């Protein structure tokens, strides 16, 4: 048996080596880079500069805006996707006829690239066309907006497109969660004379809590990493006054256009730390729970 396990380990080895190098090795490399002065295409004397790149970052107006934008984005994107997902899942779970059709439609955006979504929404949110035209025609002129071209809206417009694209994900999660609730629970509640609202409030919602938690973690880490959609809607400059800019885009431009590699590395390490705070406890918890079962 022990020999078998050794063979089994050998089978894992290629993947382990690749991930060790390309994930953990590269992260260490990036971490080191972020502590040096390599902020140009060619730096004759590479020096260790401590946390200088990080200190600069937290005094950089653009980065502070980016962090604020990330927060704004999450506050629209996460609750928006949760609510829309839950509503959609509850509706689909009523046993309505045509469920398959509606489900297919609701989840379709998930199959699209952010860039495709971006092309569609950039035109929908163009100030002189798209939604604004529709609002005018429907007598809803007060809803008209400059969308991503208005510095006061910016990232909120991007978040709207993100809700469109990813609420199908929470819907799928909730639907699976709802289907996993044994019908006897509801039967018992009905026998006890509970109203549908009480059944929802005291059975459905509590049993969906783990699903909500998973969704929040996954959506939260998407909020931190969002990049493609911003480029596709607001363009590479992140919109007027960086109103749609996010850390991932700032990192991209800093690194690959301005050649400030150490600075770009610092941004990405900050991102990594933020994502880790979210994901590591969650992964740990999931695997623990699995072992316990």
């Amino acid at each position, binding site marked *: 048996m022990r020999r078998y396990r050794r063979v089994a380990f050998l089978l894992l080895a290629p993947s382990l080596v690749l991930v060790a190098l390309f994930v953990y090795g590269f992260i260490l490399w990036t971490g080191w880079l972020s502590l040096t002065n390599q902020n140009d295409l*060619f730096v004759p004397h590479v020096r260790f500069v401590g946390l200088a790149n990080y200190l600069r970052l937290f005094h950089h107006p653009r980065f502070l805006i980016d962090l604020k934008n990330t927060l704004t984005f999450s506050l629209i994107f996460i609750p928006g996707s949760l609510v829309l997902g839950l509503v959609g899942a509850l509706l689909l779970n009523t046993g309505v006829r045509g469920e398959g059709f509606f489900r297919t439609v609701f989840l379709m955006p998930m199959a699209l690239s952010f860039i495709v979504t971006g092309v569609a929404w950039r035109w929908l949110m163009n*100030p002189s066309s798209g939604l604004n035209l529709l609002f005018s025609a429907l007598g809803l002129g007060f809803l008209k907006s400059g969308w991503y071209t208005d510095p006061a809206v910016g990232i909120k417009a991007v978040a709207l497109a993100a809700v469109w694209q990813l609420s199908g994900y929470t819907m799928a999660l909730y639907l699976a969660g709802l289907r996993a609730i044994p019908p006897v629970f509801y039967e018992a509640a009905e026998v006890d004379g509970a109203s549908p609202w009480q059944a929802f409030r005291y059975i459905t919602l509590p049993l969906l809590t783990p699903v909500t938690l998973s969704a929040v973690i996954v959506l939260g880490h998407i909020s931190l990493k969002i990049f493609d959609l911003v480029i596709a809607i607001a363009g590479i400059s*992140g919109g007027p006054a960086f109103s749609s800019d996010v850390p991932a885009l700032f990192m991209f431009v800093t690194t690959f256009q301005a050649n400030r590699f150490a600075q770009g590395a610092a941004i990405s390490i900050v991102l990594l730390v933020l994502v880790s705070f979210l994901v590591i406890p969650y992964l740990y918890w999931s695997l623990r729970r699995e072992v316990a079962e």
Partner: protein
Amino acid sequence: MKLGKWSAGILLGFALAGLALAQGGKLEIFSWWTTGGEAAGLFKLFELYKQKHPGVEIINAAVAGGAGSNAKAVLKTRMLGGDPPDSFQVHMGHELIDTWVTTGFMEPLDQLYKEYGWEKVFPKGVLALLKWNGHYWSVPANIHRANVLWYNKAIFEKYGLKPPKTFDEFFAIAEKLKKDGIIPLALGDNGIWASTHLFETVLIGTLGPEGYKGLWTGQTDWRGPGVKKALETFARMLDYVNPDHAARSWDQANDLIIQGKAAMYIHGDWVNADYLAKKFSGYGWAPAPGNYGVYDALSDTFGLPKKAPHRQEAIWWLELVGSKEGQEAFNPLKGSICARTDCDPKLFNPYLQWAMQQWKTDTIVPSLAHGAAAKESWLAAINDTMSLFVTNKNVAQAQNMLAQACVDAGVCTR
């Protein structure tokens, strides 16, 4: 990126491979001229080249998109990977010098300058921008002017206006037009460089040509009163621009002039080509306010990479690019003037004839927004500053960021 040691080995390997391929009689020209008059001009040069060197096969390695940013990214990989084209388009000044010359990727061209007497036909201001460490590194194909005020003639006639020579005159006119519901100044900065472009004309107008040039050498203080004044003037100007400027591109801003919705537009002279293409003739031009006697120049140049696979063919190309014949063929199509001062004005449209006249007498300064004045990373930092400033108009914050950018660029100490 520190590519130092191992890339040197790779470069050597490619150089040897390049030698073996060099007899083919080929010429690979890299540019981002893929559309309209630019492409037409490039093809015209190819045609002339083929007449002179019929045996050489020309490979057009043009890369489209992003106003040259795609092309620059491709070029970066090719150069670092030891696979340079025979010659490539690059903006005159720091875009070339800091990226490729100081790093040892280019061959000096002093021999060509001597042989063809180019030191006598290119203006001194241009020669200074082409020179680094006592050598010449590229050949300018054309000159564009950045600091031009374009205006709608009908509006100016209706209100009996003359192009403003100073900022005070500009603001007087702007106030008058604004009261009447006309957009005084058009701006289209969905590419933020357009704001930087406008700001550079304000810097020139405020600091004067010498003060402006000093910004790039550390002689003019970024924290000083001059830059502060320029930012204040620029902020005031922004009160008179179209509110949807962030949604418009430079040519969409120009449409406001064509439609008679806006009166003035401070932008580069590719605007002229846009008017001609859109068959609009009701426009006039003058130097931007405060910019009289100063020619804010940018230029597309071609250089010779050290590892060019077809060195002789590339040298023939550079000879053509710098020649009177080449420049006279290329520039009327491209919508720019010759870098040489001896081109025949009759070949050019009225605006370009005016520009050629000024070219001979004005003080030449390098354009910031178009790569001549500062290296790419410095320009990127200034663009960032502008992106914030056009919305929040926070002078102190912007001045601080500009000063920091100069320090980061290694030019200033505080």
